[in-house]
């Protein structure tokens, strides 16, 4: 299915993607399970609160997304990792094994802005921690859904060029140090998508995601190799089960 999204090339090879809230699919079951509840076990009260929070999302999500296309350097590296443009990323083999056949890389970021965060903080200050926690969780699931959409969109764009894409990977996952966010952000103009990276590699707004997707004639998007990693509550396990359930 082709997505009704559009993009603008703001600088050479740097694209801003327009994602409207109506493009998103928020899965309530995923919210519940991320709160810890087994299926259908969430108390009605919280379930209704989640509905109310979801109904506020169109107003409160300021979605921004974008990516930069850069060439992958195919020279053999001495240590595990990948050179994109002229920058060496210290990635684990878990990641490079999936991406190394690519000719290009899409380095991406996306965010839902800070309105949800501020709402959650406000609720907490007003003495309503449970709703604050629900707002925070819904916001996290929403930005993950934005990331899914951006991933699909980049896939569609590359299909137009007869190219395929790989899975996505993020600094901080699969043994890829989160400090490499600095390198990743060096591909973007200042304040790209309204996201600021702190010296400690934290993205502000908090509800933001970054990563890389490989692009090439001979690559494909396949199952995450979660079986090779011990982390149980990782986002990619969730992505994997989402893809499987389609």
């Amino acid at each position: 299915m082709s997505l009704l999204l559009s993009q603008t090339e703001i600088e050479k090879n740097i694209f801003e993607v327009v994602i409207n809230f109506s493009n998103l699919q928020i899965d309530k079951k995923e919210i519940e399970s991320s709160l810890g509840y087994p299926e259908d076990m969430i108390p009605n009260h919280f379930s209704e609160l989640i509905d109310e929070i979801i109904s506020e999302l169109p107003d409160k999500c300021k979605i921004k997304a974008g990516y930069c296309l850069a060439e992958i350097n195919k020279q053999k590296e001495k240590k595990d990792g990948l050179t994109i443009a002229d920058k060496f990323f210290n990635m684990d083999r878990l990641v490079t094994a999936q991406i190394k056949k690519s000719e290009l890389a899409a380095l991406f970021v996306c965010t839902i802005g800070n309105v949800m965060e501020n709402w959650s903080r406000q609720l907490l200050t007003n003495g309503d921690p449970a709703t604050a926690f629900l707002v925070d969780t819904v916001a996290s699931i929403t930005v993950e859904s934005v990331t899914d959409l951006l991933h699909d969109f980049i896939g569609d764009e590359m299909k137009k060029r007869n190219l395929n894409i790989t899975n996505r990977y993020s600094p901080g996952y699969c043994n890829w140090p989160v400090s490499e966010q600095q390198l990743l952000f060096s591909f973007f103009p200042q304040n790209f998508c309204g996201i600021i990276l702190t010296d400690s590699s934290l993205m502000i707004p908090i509800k933001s995601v970054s990563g890389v997707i490989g692009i090439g004639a001979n690559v494909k998007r396949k199952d995450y190799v979660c079986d090779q990693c011990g982390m149980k509550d990782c986002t990619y396990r969730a992505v994997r089960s989402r893809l499987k359930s389609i």
Partner: protein
Amino acid sequence: MNELIERISICVERGKVNKTSPYPKDLAGQDGADELTRQALDSNLGPDSILQACNVGMMKIGERFGRNEVFVPELLMAAKAMNAVMAHLKPFFKAGTVKAKGKFLLGTVAGDLHDIGKNLVSMVVEGNGWQVIDLGVDVKPGKFIEKIKENPDCIVGLSALLTTTMASMSKTVKEIKEQFPNIKIIVGGAPLSHKAAEQMGADGYAPDPQGAVEFLNEFIAA
């Protein structure tokens, strides 16, 4: 147990804040922790027995959390109900008639701006009868040290979101322990683990607010 006291305990456990609060559904329209505490005080039930009732309520919900029968939202509702009780008991704390279980000095470490997790911990710990001194986010080691000097009987809690700021956490633990070897430190946040806590020289780690309460309860001030 006196009936009012028992009902307060149930309200805390079930997260029933006040009469108008719609949660939990089966107690809708009934008096909550707020009204019942007022009534208890008006009928000369001492703040001690009310606090005792709250402890029982918080303990029970904590146990149910431990058995995966309830989850963080229920725990937070209980904390909210508990805070409704506390609002009535403030004067007694001020006058020294009743005492907090101890002081918990909490903050998100330098370089880290993530606060929701820490704030939830703060809320639940406070609900369990501790005085929480929340230093906020991006707290430099020097700030912790300064506050420990002012509150030498406190227990310290540190929070971090990313592995990058775990390094800053580790530095904070070292600096605190260098000056105050006897101060107990518990750490938490998404990238932490028992192993990481041990490696940085902290005394404890907990994955959730309930774990923080259980750790603290081992050090209740005499």
